[in-house]
């Protein structure tokens, strides 16, 4: 039944939704209530997610699943870590010292070798159809009430197109706010001559107009429109957060390059109540010169990420923050003629830790040469369930959407139980 369809569009969802409404409708009411109560409880506990996306597809052989000395192993060595028995690539020396905070899943097979489709699957936990991203789900169910920040913030140096910010049917409010690096969003300051009082009074007037218009009219679109103004207001109130310059000490630790600064901003955003912060580190699509690229890229990634991990831990936030390091896929074991590795969804790894995750574990394995999953095969739908259950959300429940019956995670799969605390 689960075949590689290599497809993404809507019609699957539509066919599927029809199926679901006929079979799950009876359970919908109960599911909704449960989810709702769950959301309130979670908001109280303030759990959150940090996603570090290594865009382009990091090589599992140069990171979490090294195979030195084998036919496809490449030139880099495996080094021991703070967890006896776990070895990772020598390109990640700082992470190796903190392996006891993280775990690895080495047996991912998503059967997709396309950037966009792989990325969508990893974010949505569904191969096809318009479903919300992990971050949008976090925004809906984990965001603290009265948080002034959009729930889902993405820090990236360049744009990747995310339809509706990944919110799908959860609505624009839960779509990602995309920040171009550490640049504050544009138009963050009220125009000259409009102070806070004047701004509030004109905004009140806007709402009065809206209230009149809402009379006996469809609410779906007007509510989404209103929500965008609430988020804008929240961002304006937090302007200082974007304008605050990093301390010298922080910059020494994190580094002054872009990714270091993104990690610092991520720390600030998480501390200020964002439900999901995604930081994208671009440039892992190493079709040529794979080894030089990874040496450089992972060299830039390893230290700032570890500083962020340390800060989350020392500030007592790690136990309530799920940390995930992922890509859209891995890279081919076979090295091509340009010393590159190509797209590879068949047998690759991610790392995760923090909230709800058993630390120091390795889930699954690949065969000796890394060409196939040998044990405990999982795909992005299993990971999606696992992320959400790690932050205490029942991913098998239905979304909190009146009149609709949509399971949060793919009902055909389940979480990686042994990875959860």
């Amino acid at each position, binding site marked *: 039944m689960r075949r590689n369809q290599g497809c993404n569009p809507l019609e699957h969802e539509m066919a599927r939704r029809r199926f679901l409404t006929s079979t799950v409708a009876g359970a919908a009411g109960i599911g909704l209530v449960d989810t709702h109560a769950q959301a309130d409880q979670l908001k109280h506990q303030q759990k959150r997610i940090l996603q570090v996306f290594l865009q382009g597809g990091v090589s599992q052989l140069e990171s979490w699943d090294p195979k030195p000395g084998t036919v496809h192993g490449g030139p880099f060595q495996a080094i021991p870590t703070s967890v006896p028995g776990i070895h990772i690539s020598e390109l990640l020396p700082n992470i190796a010292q903190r392996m006891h905070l993280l775990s690895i899943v080495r047996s991912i097979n998503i059967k997709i070798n396309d950037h966009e489709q792989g990325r969508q699957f990893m974010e949505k936990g569904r191969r096809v159809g318009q479903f919300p991203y992990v971050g949008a789900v976090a925004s809906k169910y984990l965001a603290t009430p009265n948080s002034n920040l959009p729930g889902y913030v993405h820090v990236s140096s360049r744009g990747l197109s995310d339809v509706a910010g990944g919110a799908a049917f959860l609505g624009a409010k839960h779509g990602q*706010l995309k920040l171009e690096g550490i640049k504050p969003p544009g138009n963050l300051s009220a125009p000259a001559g409009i102070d806070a009082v004047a701004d509030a009074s004109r905004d009140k007037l806007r709402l009065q107009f809206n209230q009149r218009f809402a009379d006996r009219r469809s609410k779906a679109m007007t509510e989404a429109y209103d929500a965008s103004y609430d988020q804008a207001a929240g961002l304006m109130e937090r302007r200082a957060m974007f304008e605050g310059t990093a301390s010298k000490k922080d910059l020494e630790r994190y580094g002054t390059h872009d990714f270091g600064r993104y990690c610092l901003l991520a720390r600030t955003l998480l501390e200020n109540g964002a439900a999901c912060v995604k930081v994208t580190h671009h440039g892992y699509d190493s079709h040529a010169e794979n080894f030089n690229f990874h040496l450089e890229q992972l060299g830039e990634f390893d230290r700032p990420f570890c500083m962020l991990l340390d800060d989350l831990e020392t500030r007592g936030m790690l136990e309530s923050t799920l940390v995930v390091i992922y890509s859209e896929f891995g890279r081919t074991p076979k090295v091509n003629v340009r010393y590159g590795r190509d797209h590879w969804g068949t047998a690759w790894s991610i790392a995760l830790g923090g909230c709800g995750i058993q630390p120091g574990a390795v889930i699954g394995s690949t065969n000796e040469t890394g060409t196939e999953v040998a044990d405990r095969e999982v795909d992005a739908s299993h990971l999606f369930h696992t992320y959400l259950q790690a932050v205490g959300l029942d991913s098998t429940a239905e979304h909190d959407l009146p009149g609709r019956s949509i399971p949060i995670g793919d009902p055909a799969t389940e979480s990686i139980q042994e990875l959860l605390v």
Partner: protein
Amino acid sequence: MLISLTMIACSAASSVADTPLHKWVDMAVGMGSVGFENVAADDAGDAAFARRLYLDLTGMIPSAEQARRFLADRSTDKRARLIDQLLTSPQYARRMQYEFDTMLMERRPDKHIKSDEWRNYLRQSFAQNKPWDQLVSEMLTADGTDEKTRPAARFLLDREMKTDTMTRDLGRIFLGRDLQCAQCHDHPNIEGYLQRHYHGLAAFLNRSYLFTDPKSKQTSIGEKAEGAVKFTSVFTSESDETAPRLLDLPPIEDPPAAEEPYTVKPDKKVRSVPVYSRRLQLAAAMTDPANVAFRRNIANRLWALMMGRGIVEPLDMWHAENPPLRPALLDLLADTLADHDYDIRYLLRELALTKTYQQSSQYNGDAEDSDAAHFAVSMLKPLSPEQLAWSMMQATSLTETTLKDLKAKHLAAGTEDAEKQIDDPLWQEETLHNALKAHVDTFAGLFGVVGIQTSRFDASADQALFVRNGAALQSWIASGSGQLTSRLNMLQPPDLIDEFYFSVFSRPPAIGEIHFVTQFLEQQPDDRESAIRKLVWAALSSAEFRFNH
């Protein structure tokens, strides 16, 4: 209901009845049946109708003066006359240019054809009311070598002649079917999206390629004389091959191979031209009456343009599991459009004349949201980025003041015929467009979506920040000479409020609204001008302004 549908079927086939299309449409939607009338909304009223129509047919709200003039008109046929007037205005061609550019190119960046040339080609086509089948034929036939027809080649050339991209978009945009999944296998969930449909379409194009002239660097479409399309299902491993074919229509077999298959032989330096071109069979096959999907697709898209939702929705997702809400209605529209030689203006006119189009967006009683899907209540349509930009400039009188300046400049330049020219609607539209185009581009960049377009509405914080704090809007709201704020500042309530409502909302204020705005102005501690600025800003950022309702 059954009787009326049978009648519709007859009329579509033979066009016997003298009954105009818009009456048949209302019947096919359900008007006259008790169940429908119980939930159907009231008539929208003249003001709401005029705003809606100006937005749909000219791409911006009416000026306060236009709105007032329409309301004051006492004649009974004024709606029909307004429809005719707007359909022949230069603004109509511009509006269609925007809509069809977005539909056909989905806000892709320029690659090989300058988008200005392409847009001009579209606008000229709609100004001439070029039939849709002719427009499509031109786009699928032009190869980019003739300067005259080169802009039409953008649909193919700017998709880089990539067979998969072209095939998928031909299916989506001209046939209403997203066949992407059928590339690798018959669709697993959708009966009727078959691998041979995808590859039949691909076979028209897979011999064609992007040719770059080594000297001029100009790109055009070259084609080889050989290259078969074979495909294998990734599920069943069954293989097949196909000649070009449209969905389930018979394949178009190649003629017997000529002794010399090329007019221009393939060579790195020249664009190869085969004696028999598969690509050149596409336009005729696409627009052939036997290809029902072609007329249904455009009828559905034009319906969605006016009504806010397709009869099949999403527009590119026609299949057995997602049938039209009103199959007879869609066939009626499609067949009548084809009978009228794909006259887009005719169909839009008939749609605008329907009661369905002219009903209110407010429910009666406790009707549910879902009824809008069945066309009993008018849907809210989010303004496109272009509509939003132009409407904001119209509401704040930027259009009027800019045009006034441009006219004065043109006269001052002393060109021959300048006096006559400045009264020419086409000169006015083009001059004003060129002057304000940069603003429209800003809105398109911020509010537009690159890639597959959907009817869904979405709003983001950065858009709201732009409206709240962006410099453009602030300068439009400022009290420059002739602009809305300064005009209002010279008036007193209730005239001030009347002028404000007509300028921004294209309607007179209700009594309660006069009261509420007067109260607001009285309560403002600071000077009156800044109070008026707040009023204008709040109205421009309101939902009533953001949607076509």
